[in-house]
């Protein structure tokens, strides 16, 4: 068995306790039962056996994952551990939650199952994240209270932020201060928005001016480089890119994998399998099949015409403009769902191509400058 890994985004429910206007998932009342989980895990482990894969990263998401009780996750954890041990596999669990349903009853399972860490989401300013029939301020108040409570219990909270028009208006300096100094976050990532799922007016407005968005990213990277980087603050994707360009081991995000179809699938509580959470929840024509109705994940993936399209995507892209790109080795054409939600096809470059290239070039220069400073320090001390 090799050291290769496989990632599974497992949506334990498609229910949600928030009403974020830009959400790319189509919500339902479906919840995964422990019996269904046992079937899914058995088939995933068989797939890992067949592929000679040793490690599974299991990303628990929703809907809102905390709508199932902590006791459900404790039982799920026990079952998965037993099954994985029987197959000689290592499993690591990660939890992504809006934290609105968090209370102290979660502490034990977060500690034992999720390494005492939770990933959440927060935007600044918050224009789109709302509680059901309430406004953004109510969401922010509840979220901040829950996060404070979790941190007081010793839980590490990381976050994903999606820039919006307001973010560009306030600028990178204010954004950085809010996240690092006011919220005290030491590890967060900034993901470019995309209009996935059912169209609505808010999603149409997610198409930010590319030049302003790029400027925001580069300024944020500079601020982080000057103030946070040496102090241990990690901002994705800057930290990973700086590691990469500094020739350190780097875990780049899935949008820049050689082919995400090789390393990742998402499964929803109905058993549907697709490329990732947005695809499985919102684009039924691109599902690969249903694992609760199929005896084998390998057979399901092999037989899926939709998956074949994902596998073919980088091949098609590299026959076009991507081939000449200096950063082909880093990006491989970018994210399929970002492309599809904007362009309506898989077979084009990521619409954030220009942003990515500017960012790669910027962080590459940052790495060179840091290396130069290290050399200079060494010379000065000689």
């Amino acid at each position, binding site marked *: *068995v*090799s*050291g*290769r890994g496989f990632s599974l985004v497992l949506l334990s429910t498609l229910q949600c306790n928030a009403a974020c206007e830009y959400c790319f998932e189509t919500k339902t009342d479906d919840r995964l039962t422990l019996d269904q989980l046992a079937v899914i895990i058995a088939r995933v482990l068989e797939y890992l056996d*067949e*592929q*000679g894969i040793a490690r599974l990263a299991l990303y628990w998401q929703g809907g809102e994952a905390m709508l199932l009780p902590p006791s459900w996750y404790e039982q799920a954890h026990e079952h998965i551990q037993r099954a994985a041990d029987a197959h000689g596999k290592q499993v690591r669990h990660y939890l992504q939650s809006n934290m609105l349903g968090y209370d102290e009853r979660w502490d034990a399972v977060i500690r034992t199952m999720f390494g005492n860490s939770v990933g959440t989401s927060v935007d600044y300013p918050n224009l789109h994240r709302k509680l059901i029939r309430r406004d953004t301020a109510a969401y922010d108040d509840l979220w901040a209270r829950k996060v404070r409570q979790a941190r007081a219990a010793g839980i590490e909270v990381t976050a994903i932020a999606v820039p919006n028009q307001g973010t560009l208006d306030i600028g990178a300096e204010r954004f950085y201060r809010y996240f690092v100094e006011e919220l005290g976050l030491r590890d967060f990532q900034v993901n470019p928005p995309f209009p996935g799922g059912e169209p609505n007016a808010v999603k149409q407005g997610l198409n930010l001016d590319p030049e302003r968005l790029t400027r925001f990213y580069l300024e944020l990277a500079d601020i982080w480089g000057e103030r946070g980087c040496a102090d241990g603050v990690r901002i994705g994707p800057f930290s990973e890119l700086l590691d990469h*360009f500094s*020739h350190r081991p780097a875990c780049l995000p899935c949008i820049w994998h*050689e*082919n995400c179809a*090789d390393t990742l699938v998402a499964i929803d509580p109905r058993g549907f399998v697709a490329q990732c959470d947005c695809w499985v929840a919102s684009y039924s024509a691109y599902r690969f099949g249903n694992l609760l109705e199929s005896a084998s994940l390998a057979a399901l993936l092999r037989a899926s015409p939709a998956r074949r399209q994902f*596998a073919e995507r*980088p*091949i*098609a892209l*590299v*026959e076009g403009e991507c*081939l000449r790109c*200096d*950063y*082909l*080795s*880093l990006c*491989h054409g970018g994210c399929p769902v970002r492309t599809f939600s904007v362009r309506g096809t898989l077979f084009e470059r990521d619409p954030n191509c220009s942003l990515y290239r500017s960012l790669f070039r910027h962080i*590459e220069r940052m790495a060179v400058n840091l290396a130069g400073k290290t*050399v200079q320090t*060494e*010379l000065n001390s*000689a």
Partner: protein
Amino acid sequence: LDQPLLIVPDKRIVTLIYNIPAALLPRYRDVDFILRAHDPVALVAVLADEPNLEHLVHLRLSSLPVDIEPLLRWPPPAPLELILAAPALEFAQLYRCARLVDVRPVRVTIPVAAGFGKAARVAVALRMAVKLDIGQPGPDLIPELAEVLDFYLHQPTVAQPIEYFHSIWLSLFHRQPVDLWTVQEEDPAVLRYVEDDGTERLPGRLANSNDVVNPEGLVAELRCNPAAAGVECAACAFFADCGGYFKWPRRDFDCAGVIGLFQTLTDAAAEVRADLARFDADRGGATP
């Protein structure tokens, strides 16, 4: 900088390496061998029945595989060489093989024909090493070779060796000559190619040479007598690293183009040496 070659050079001191078809494994299992097939299924089937893989140097697929799963599942991490036949057409298909890098070192051998640079770019982007099967490149191919050399030397995202550039650059940088016969794995003192029917022949460009009387001593003899390789060789500044390699099979090959590539490599090695010397001088230490 010092990535090892896929084939361990020290092996030549001890024994020949045979490039054999999978079907002939039983006959060659007690000597060092490169095992080749067109199809991963055939390769893995033979390997599964073979208890002794002590002498396996690496695996070689003579054409791009349609299904790589058998090689993903076969556990021993033996290096794998993928052979492209038509690089300008096949380059994008390397993406189908991307996962192989997760389980074993992969090198792509790319014939230098128009459009080969696309395959070199994609292979490197997929973390695969590259070996250029350079032949005797005509003037029409020199600009593309120069472009790939520039890509190898100056593109910061290149983190894989592109041979022969890589080993020759290292040799020039360290001032420790290594000849192209060795780098290109065509030294007849080291390798034999075994045809599917069992016929043994000399490797690579020497395959059809009738005038090599002492294959084991060829490279050493040329080193002592450069003029034996070609008229130009005796006065060539790059003979130490070339060893007359480009004068086979056509002895009248015009080396002007490849000499330009050697010069670029020499300049690049000198530039890095000068940078390091300046650093050491600034630090008050000795130059390398």
